[in-house]
């Protein structure tokens, strides 16, 4: 029990901060994923074949390639790519992106592919009459989207989004390879310096279980809120 006490002798406070870091990365990644979904879902539903192709290749590639490989691509290639772009604009200094941004972006791109599929499915299962009714009523585009389609879509999407959240939360453990101190990395450090890997990795597993359990409770409440009237 001494091992996880707070203060100088234990790893309790470090692990607590690390857990907060995991949550921060997961939420940031999820939001970045939504951003990607916002771009690619319309492309998937577009009439134009070429736009469909772009969106389909994004979701197929990202969902078919291991997460770790995507993280390595961004970890080793991220600053190179940014510097390349900066050089075009005449900035020649070395740019280093921190591990948080690299990690959150790479996980975000992965979770974005899953979110895109979820949103596409949700929009496609909304009754066609709803779209036609909006047309007939002559609603403005953004009212039509935010007041009619969005609420119905969210109700259908939330159960699947909770799966995406679980995947994203678990994927954050892979960022530990880039050196960002989240639960996995902190356990690795603690296990190394105390020579007690069994305890610390089991504790990490417990922390992840608690996080998934709590977020499921929260999402269930959200789901109830959005299913009012059904």
């Amino acid at each position, binding site marked *: 029990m001494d091992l996880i006490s707070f203060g100088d002798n234990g790893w309790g406070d470090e692990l607590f901060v690390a857990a907060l870091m995991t949550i921060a990365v997961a939420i940031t990644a999820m939001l970045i994923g939504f951003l990607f979904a916002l771009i690619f879902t319309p492309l998937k539903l577009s009439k134009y074949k070429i736009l469909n192709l772009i969106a389909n290749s994004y979701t197929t590639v990202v969902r*078919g*390639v*291991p997460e*770790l490989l995507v993280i*390595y691509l961004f970890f*080793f*290639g991220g600053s*190179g790519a940014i510097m390349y772009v900066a050089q075009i604009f005449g900035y020649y200094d070395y740019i280093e992106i921190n591990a948080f941004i690299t990690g959150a972006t790479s996980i975000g791109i992965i979770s974005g592919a899953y979110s895109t599929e979820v949103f596409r499915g949700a929009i496609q299962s909304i009754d066609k009459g709803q779209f036609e009714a909006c047309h007939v009523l002559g609603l403005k585009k953004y009212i039509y989207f935010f007041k009619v389609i969005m609420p119905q879509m969210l109700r259908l999407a939330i159960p699947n989004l909770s799966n995406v959240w679980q995947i994203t939360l678990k994927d954050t453990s892979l960022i530990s390879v880039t050196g960002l101190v989240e639960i996995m990395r902190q*356990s690795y450090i603690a296990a190394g310096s105390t020579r007690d890997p069994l305890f610390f990795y089991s504790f990490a597993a417990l922390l*992840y279980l608690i996080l998934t359990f709590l977020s499921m409770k929260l999402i269930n409440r959200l789901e109830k809120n959005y299913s009012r009237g059904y």
Partner: protein
Amino acid sequence: MDLELIITSFPKLLGATLITLKLLSASLFFGLILGLFFAILRLNRNKLISGFAYGYSYVFRGTPLLVQIFIIYFGLGQIEYLRSTFLWVILKEPYWCAIIAFSLNTGAYTSEILRSAFETIKPGIIEAGRSLGLNKVFIFTKIQIPIAIKQSLPAYGNEIILMLKGTSLASTVTLMDITGVAKFIISTTFRPVEVFIIAGSIYLFITFLVHNLIKYLEKKYRYQ
């Protein structure tokens, strides 16, 4: 774009594909057995037994695969007692540790897939078997299992692809699978894009094969 690097690293990555496929097939094989076993436990009327099976699948689905590998590879070696038993022969090899972790992980997902497949079987079919005087084992092996397999094919196809991606974590315990070799080439040449393209294409190609195999099986086992 460095074409030469692409040409020289392609055979290396192709060689590593063999390890990835070995890991994948071994863990799917053991995972299927575990999954079937725990799915049967889940359907047991005894709360304690079904609760145990639920706990297993909850824990393994609620924690990252990376933690599971690390517990088995780094953690179990710490127990003095284990080192003296025959289990140590297996547990000191990263290859077997990875397979154990993957099998337990995919077993948890498979048990959920099979359980829901068993639950969707209409009770009338089982009752029909019973009224024909077939015994329990016969009903289970000749009626329930074939229907459940057919029912769970699409979901199991997804699980195979997830597991394929999961095998990439074997590189964290020193195994040189596709991702392990890719990381090695990237960190020696600093050419992430080229290596990503080749390694990614190999994974996508395997995904493509699995996808079509499942499609073919689904067609083959459709109701006449």
